[in-house]
């Protein structure tokens, strides 16, 4: 066939290096909760250097603020700046009506840095916890400091809320930007959960879509059109090494990892129309799971690894169905309205987020699989691509704001909202499934 003579490699594919400057996602909190806990995060002390390469207190305070559950107090009100627990005069902090207090310091040592911090309960005057990072005998390198600040945020969040945090995680997303030459550039980015430290892991003149994290957080599967056809790739984030999966005529798309990281659920239309397949990565083998003349797409693995939920038009409109991974009869899961698609599970398997259409508007909705019932979480419009934070407390999704694609985060209880934007269009967010605890 003539078309195939467009060589596989005749592609304008730009693989970037991380130093390239890119706009950081700007985060705005659009809705918080009134009962947020007042907390003081004192600027960390610095030893053995002029100033610290990373503003620990700033990162921690911003993380806690973004969660919507904390109200960091302004630094200018602080009467003193203790850097260790023994320096704290609790009376001062009670005057400010702080409930929590975080103090710490960062020390430059040979070959790196050591960070120590303490979390104190202002009311009782007691220390709740304290850690040195890393353990004795080890040091942090400069490029690990920001991550350490997110870990500290997670520790504080868990101590004060009783729930695990999701700060030391990453978000992948796709951008589409009009370049100086008048053509579009599509990039796949990975950033820290606060939008900082964005790295383009792939940039192309051809669309990139459907990023999916491996359960260990080391790899991304995605679809790239760089050969002018959709093809699924798996990319190692540390090395940039890529593997091209088997591809066929027609659609090759919608990759979703199995919880054990050994298989991908994918969509191929090689037999004439889109069907769900299970792709065994070690053996490079395929098994077809669905058999229907309708559209079957957007598979996602249940956290127990036993079943796959997918979108199908077999009943007319798009609805969600569940099928055992071993094969069998799909069971319809959604009956609310005429459009429910692109499902994703919370890590505990209890909630299913999806895109739901109502009166021509597309919403992010959540279905409680145990108790039933669908709740709308987003404000509605062109909302799509929901992805749970690994602790299950938040959902990130794509929406439109003033004609631009932006990302938004909503807490699963609907109380806290944030918006993340940058130059150009940002879409298809995927929260890393990597769990720390």
């Amino acid at each position, binding site marked *: 066939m003539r078309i195939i003579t467009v060589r596989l490699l005749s592609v304008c594919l730009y693989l970037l290096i991380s130093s390239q400057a890119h706009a950081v996602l700007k985060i705005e909190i659009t809705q918080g909760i009134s009962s947020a806990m007042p907390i003081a995060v004192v600027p960390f002390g610095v030893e053995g250097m002029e100033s610290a390469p990373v503003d620990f207190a700033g990162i921690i305070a911003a993380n806690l603020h973004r969660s919507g559950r904390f109200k960091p107090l302004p630094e200018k009100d602080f009467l003193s700046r203790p850097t260790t627990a023994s320096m704290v005069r609790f009376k001062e902090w009670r005057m400010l009506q702080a409930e929590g207090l975080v103090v710490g310091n960062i020390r430059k040592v040979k070959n790196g840095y050591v960070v120590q911090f303490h979390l104190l309960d202002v009311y009782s005057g007691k220390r709740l916890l304290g850690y040195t990072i890393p353990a004795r005998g080890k040091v942090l390198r400069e490029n690990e400091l920001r*991550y350490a600040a997110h870990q500290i945020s997670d520790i504080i969040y868990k101590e004060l809320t009783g729930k695990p945090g999701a700060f*030391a995680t990453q978000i992948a997303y796709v951008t589409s930007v009009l370049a100086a030459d008048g053509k579009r550039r599509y990039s796949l980015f990975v950033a820290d959960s606060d939008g900082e430290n964005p790295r383009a892991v792939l940039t192309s003149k051809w669309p990139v*879509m459907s990023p999916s994290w491996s359960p260990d957080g080391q790899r991304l599967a995605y679809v790239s059109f760089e050969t002018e056809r959709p093809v699924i790739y798996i990319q190692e984030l*540390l090395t940039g090494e890529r593997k091209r999966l088997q591809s066929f005529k027609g659609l090759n798309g919608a990759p979703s990892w199995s919880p054990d990281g050994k298989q991908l659920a994918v969509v191929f239309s090689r037999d004439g129309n889109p069907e769900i397949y299970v792709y065994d990565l070690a053996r490079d083998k395929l098994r077809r799971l669905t058999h229907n003349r309708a559209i079957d*797409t957007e598979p996602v693995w249940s956290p127990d690894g036993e079943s796959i939920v997918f979108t199908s038009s077999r009943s007319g409109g798009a609805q969600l169905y569940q099928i055992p991974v071993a094969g069998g009869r799909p069971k319809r899961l959604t009956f609310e309205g005429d459009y429910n698609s692109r499902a994703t599970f919370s890590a505990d398997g209890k909630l299913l987020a999806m895109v739901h259409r109502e009166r021509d508007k597309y919403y992010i909705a959540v279905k409680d699989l145990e108790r039933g019932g669908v709740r709308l979480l987003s404000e509605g419009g062109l909302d799509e*691509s929901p992805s749970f934070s690994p602790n299950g407390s938040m959902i990130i999704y794509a929406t439109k704001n003033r004609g631009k694609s932006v990302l938004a985060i909503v807490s699963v209880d609907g109380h806290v909202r944030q918006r993340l934007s940058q130059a150009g269009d940002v879409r298809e967010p995927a929260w890393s499934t990597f769990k720390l605890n």
Partner: protein
Amino acid sequence: MKSYSKLLGLAAPALILMGCSSTGEVVDAPIEEVPAPAVIEQPVTPSITTIPVDPPTFSGTTEVYSGDALDDPDSVLAIRVIYFEYDSSNIRDEFQSVISAHATYLIDNPNAFLVLEGHADERGTREYNMALGERRANSVKNAMLMQGVSAGQLEVVSYGEERPAVMGSDSDSWAQNRRVELRYQGR
């Protein structure tokens, strides 16, 4: 072809947390291993020269040669986009004659090769729209096959909502984006 890759710093050792008790004494704390932040560095791929695809060659006598028909702006063959209704892959009546004309051209020019690019508007989810774009391209393909075009002269590719013809979130933009583009290979 020159290929090289490099790695910037990375793969740092696990961070280990060490706890202290609230009296300030260092005690054993749960140790957790945490991978360091991934510093991502891409191997640099050499830029690759595009290999031009041969223009379609036409066999037959000079009278049959019709390389110009596609270039005639007044010909119905100049219409290269078929538009669709929302969530539909049915061919509208006004486009039947366009498809017929292209089918006739393909039958008359067995070396011509046509790529049918299916597209969707931005509403609905992205992979579902990939499927919808493919359905649209397939309905044009099937209409041409019915008229006797050889399957070997056609290829379907869907771009879903990824390559809109126009930006904009209004019904006019959406209508322009729900389409199948006819792209003759090598032209």
